[in-house]
């Protein structure tokens, strides 16, 4: 479903990704772990198409679509979702307006009918409830005044409403207390389906106690240096990345 092949990328002329290859199949959850500076966040921004992250080689295919040929908003319509480590605050634009605009922009881009007001509200209500955010909060400006945990819950509401094919979640577990972590993990598990794929980018094993990945990859210096099953996460938690960094 998501096929990354020999991906090279630079930021400010500095090489951060150095030949990253990774395939996430439909229905799978993969975790990417790695030390600080390994390129974890860069990978997520490169996939999403953020300006300033320059691809210098390689390909990224989503269900046969060449993602790198698309603008950021077109990638979203093609089915990519990036859960941000630090969700952005947007004063003056309500969460509901933001999300409805996004959903309908994606639907238009795919040639689908837009969601009516009623249809949209129904969709949001169910997900807001599921992730423990009140509708009152969603009427407020995007993430403004939200706690760290509320911002991550909001990311999950967006994820559930937009229903992408591939979700890349960048440090979605950072800054979460244990309750919020459970809510987010439940959400990821709930959204697991035979037709979607999830890439969890994480620094700690903590989230992986609740979301058991099909595969775990170790990212060091912009490349996958080791892959394994869920047991690899526990080994990394115990032994650290020293072995991989030395290799």
């Amino acid at each position: 479903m998501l096929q990354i092949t020999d991906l090279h990328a630079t930021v400010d002329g500095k090489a951060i990704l150095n030949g990253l290859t990774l395939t996430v199949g439909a229905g799978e959850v993969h975790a990417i772990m790695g030390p600080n500076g390994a390129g974890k966040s860069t990978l997520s921004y490169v996939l999403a198409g953020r300006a300033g992250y320059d691809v210098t080689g390689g390909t990224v295919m989503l269900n046969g679509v060449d993602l790198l040929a698309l603008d950021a908003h077109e990638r979203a319509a093609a089915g990519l979702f990036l859960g941000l480590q630090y969700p952005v605050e947007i004063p003056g634009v309500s969460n509901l307006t933001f999300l409805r605009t996004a959903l309908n922009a994606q639907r238009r881009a795919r040639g689908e009918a837009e969601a009516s007001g009623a249809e949209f509200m129904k969709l949001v209500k169910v997900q807001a409830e599921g992730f423990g955010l009140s509708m009152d909060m969603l009427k407020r400006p995007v993430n403004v005044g939200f706690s760290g945990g509320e911002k991550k819950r909001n990311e999950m509401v967006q994820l559930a409403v937009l229903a992408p094919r591939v979700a890349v979640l960048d440090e979605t577990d950072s800054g979460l207390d244990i309750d919020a972590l459970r809510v987010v993990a439940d959400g990821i598990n709930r959204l697991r389906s035979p037709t979607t794929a999830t890439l969890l980018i994480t620094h700690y094993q903590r989230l992986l106690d609740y979301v058991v990945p099909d595969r775990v990859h170790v990212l060091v210096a912009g490349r996958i240096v080791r892959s394994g099953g869920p047991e690899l996460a526990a080994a990394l938690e115990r032994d650290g990345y020293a072995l991989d960094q030395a290799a």
Partner: protein
Amino acid sequence: MTALPTRKDEAWRYSDHAAVAGLWPLTATAPLVVAAGTTARRTIVLDGATPAIDAHDITVEAGATLTMAVLAMGGSFGRVALDVTLGQGAHFELGGVILGRGEATNEIVTTVNHAAPNATSRQVIRSVLDERATGSYLGKVAVARGAQKSDAVQSVKALLLSRSATANAKPELEIFADDVKCAHGATVGELNKDALFYMASRGIGAEEARALLTEAFIADALAGAPELAERAIAWLRREL
């Protein structure tokens, strides 16, 4: 003022002087008086179809309230000048929006005289400027001797969509009383790149993202004047 103003006149420093010359001399407008204890609303729209100067002398008598909304937009020269005198306990509220692109010059120039105690004034000005447009706010708040407990707020923000656009903000205080509250803030900025990327990552295209952000930016100033807000939004959607 009868003589044609020049760039040396502080209140006309940023004007389009060729356009001003074409409009000179100004025809006097009847002064507006808001009678003691009453409430009035006024709106002014300069749509930029032709150069225009709209100048008003305003008196808000004791205990009266005047709420004004001003929208100066479009592609030529527009100037709204308000000289407001507040009586005891009077309240003046101004929401002003300047929208410009091309070579447009639009300005809102105010003098608010707190002539008696306990008067309050609140001015919120937002400008969205693209291409080589200029938007200026020159706002003087004058608190007279003895006008204690005056409370004046000026909030001035400009959003530049192009590096060649110009915003001038000049809030100015002249205070001759010692027990007053006068606050002013002025900022000039660009569209938030993080917000633009966040929106794009959710599928919102650049044009729609810009519309949402610019509409949010001016919302504070026109919250009390929905018909002006609608016109401003229509302009933003059409012109930018």
